[in-house]
C-alpha cells in the first residue's frame, strides 16, 4: 500500500505578479454572474435602446429628409439617461451581495489570508460591477458613435462634436463610479444582500423624492444637490453641453458626487478588514 507524503509542500503553480490578484476575483465574479440566464436576458433588454438608436442613425443617414431623427449631442445624452434604469437594476442585482455575501459566509477572512490586499479585493469587486455597468452605458454609446460615422460615411459629425467621445466616456465613468462605490460601501456594512439592495434603492429614490418636495415648497431647483440622480443629471448636462435642468451650480453637484464617493471609500476602508473587532 503506497504511503503518500501528507506533510507541507511548497506551491508549485505559476506565481502571478503582485498587484494582479484582483483579476482573479473580477474574472470569477463576472463568470458567476454570466451563468445566470435571467441576467443575460436583462443585458439583452438593456441593449434594446441601442438597437433603436442604431435604426434611427441608419434612417437619418439614408433619408436626411427625416430631420426629426437628426443625430445631435442631445440624443447621446438622452441615450445615457435612458440607461439609468438598467444601471440601477444591474447595480442592485450584481452589487448588493458582492461584499455582503462574503461577510455572511465569513469568506472575507479567507480572502485576506491569501496574498491579496484589501485594496485588490475591493478593486476586484468594483471591477465585476463596473464591467457590467460599462457594458450597458459606455459600450453601446460608443458603438452608436461609431455607427454614426459608419452609416453616414464621413467624419463630419464627429468633427463637429469632437467632445462627444470624451463626454460619453467621462459621464459613463461617473455614472458607474457613483453607483458602484455607493453599493459596495453599503454592501460592506451588512451581511444581507437584500437589505443592501433596499438601502441603495432608498438612497437613490428617496433622495430624489426629497428633492421633489423641496422643489415644490421653495419653487427653486437649487436644491437638486440633495438628490443622487439629480447630481448626476446636472453634471451630465454640463458634460454634454446641453441645457441644464437645475439651477444648482455644477460645481456643487460635482462636489456632492465627490463627497458620496469619498464617504464610500472611507466606509470600505473601515469595513473591509480581515479581522472584525466585536465590542
Amino acid at each position: 500500500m503506497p504511503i503518500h507524503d501528507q506533510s507541507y509542500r511548497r506551491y508549485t503553480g505559476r506565481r502571478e505578479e503582485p498587484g494582479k490578484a484582483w483579476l482573479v476575483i473580477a474574472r470569477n465574479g463576472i463568470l458567476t454572474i454570466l451563468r445566470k440566464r435571467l441576467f443575460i436576458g436583462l443585458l439583452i433588454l438593456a441593449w434594446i435602446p441601442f438597437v433603436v438608436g442604431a435604426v434611427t442613425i441608419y434612417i437619418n443617414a439614408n433619408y436626411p429628409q427625416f430631420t426629426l431623427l437628426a443625430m445631435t449631442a442631445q440624443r447621446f445624452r438622452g441615450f445615457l439617461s435612458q440607461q439609468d434604469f438598467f444601471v440601477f437594476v444591474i447595480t442592485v442585482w450584481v452589487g448588493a451581495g458582492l461584499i455582503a455575501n462574503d461577510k455572511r459566509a465569513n469568506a472575507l477572512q479567507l480572502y485576506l489570508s491569501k496574498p491579496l490586499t484589501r485594496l485588490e479585493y475591493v478593486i476586484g469587486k468594483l471591477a465585476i460591477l463596473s464591467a457590467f455597468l460599462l457594458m450597458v452605458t459606455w459600450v453601446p454609446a460608443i458603438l452608436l458613435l461609431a455607427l454614426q460615422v459608419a452609416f453616414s460615411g464621413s467624419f463630419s459629425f464627429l468633427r463637429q462634436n469632437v467632445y462627444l467621445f470624451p463626454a460619453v466616456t467621462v459621464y459613463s465613468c461617473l455614472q458607474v463610479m457613483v453607483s458602484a462605490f455607493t453599493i459596495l460601501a453599503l454592501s460592506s456594512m451588512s451581511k444581507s444582500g437584500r437589505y443592501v439592495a433596499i438601502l441603495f434603492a432608498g438612497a437613490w429614490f428617496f433622495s430624489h423624492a426629497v428633492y421633489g418636495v423641496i422643489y415644490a415648497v421653495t419653487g427653486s431647483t437649487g436644491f437638486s444637490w440633495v438628490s443622487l440622480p439629480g447630481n448626476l443629471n446636472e453634471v451630465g448636462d454640463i458634460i454634454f453641453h446641453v441645457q441644464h435642468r437645475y439651477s444648482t451650480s455644477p460645481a456643487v453637484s460635482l462636489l456632492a458626487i465627490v463627497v458620496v464617493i469619498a464617504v464610500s471609500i472611507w466606509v470600505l476602508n473601515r469595513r473591509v478588514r480581515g479581522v472584525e473587532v466585536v465590542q
Partner: protein
Amino acid sequence: MPAPAPRTVSFAQAARRVFDLSLGQMLWSRRTIFLALVVSAPVVLGLVVRLMTAFGIHGSVRIGGAAVISGPSIFGLFIWLLYLRFTVPVLGVFYGTSLIADEVEDKTITYLFTRPIPRGAVLVGKYLAYLVATVLVVLPSVMLLYFLVVPVGGGAIAPTFPSLVKDLGLLGIGLAAYGSLFAWVGCRFKYPLVTGLVFAFGWEQAIMIIPGYLKRLTIAYYIQGLVPHAMPMDDSALSILQVVSRDSVSAPISLISLAVIWLTFLILAARAAGRREYVLEQ
C-alpha cells in the same frame, strides 16, 4: 392504553402564533433602523419646511397648476411624493419579499415548516406582523408631519382632520395591498427583491404616464383614485404627461380593486408558500 390524539391547531390559531413570534422580531431588529430612517425623514423635512416658511423662504407650491403655500396643500404634497410614491411601495417590497426569504436565508425555515401547522399560516402570520409593524411606525410619523406642516400659512387643523383620517386609512390600505403582492413575489420568484423593485420603481412609474388600460395593472392607479389631495405638478414633461394621461377611477371601484388585489395575492402567497420546495444553501 391508546395514545392521545394529537391536538390540531386551526389555520387562524397557527397564524396568530406565528404573528406573535414575528411581530417582536420585526420591531426589534436591525432592519427597524431602515424603517425608522424612512419614516423619520419626512418628519425632519416637515420641520425644515416649517422653519423655512417661518423665515419666509417659500416659493411656488403648485397643485393642479395653481400656486399655493397653505399647510394642508404642502401636507398633501408630502403624502403624494414621499409616502405614496416611495415609502409605501418600498416598505412593501422590503418586508413583503423578506417574509419567507429571510427564513430561507437564515436557514430557519425548517423549524417553522416542521411544526404541525399549515405552511400557509406561517406566511399569513408573518404578513399580519409586517402589516402591524409598518402601520404602527408609519402612521404616527404621518400624524407628526400633519401637526408640523398643516399650520403653515395659516392652515387650520380641525377642518382638514377628516382628510388626515382618509390619508391614514389610505396608507394602511396601500401597505396591505403592496405587502400581499410582494409576499407572493417573495414566495414565487427566484429574485424577489429585484422583481419587486422593478415593479415598484420601473413598471408602476413608467406605465402611469401611458394612456390606456395598462395602468390598471398597477396598484398605484387604484391608490391614486383614493387620495383626497390634488396631484402636485411641476414644469417637467413627466409631470405634464402624468396629468394628461390621468384618468380618475371612482373611490368605490378603487377600494374594491384594492381589496381584490390584496385577497388574491395573499391567497396566492399562502398557496405558493405551502407548495414550494425550499432548498437551503449549503
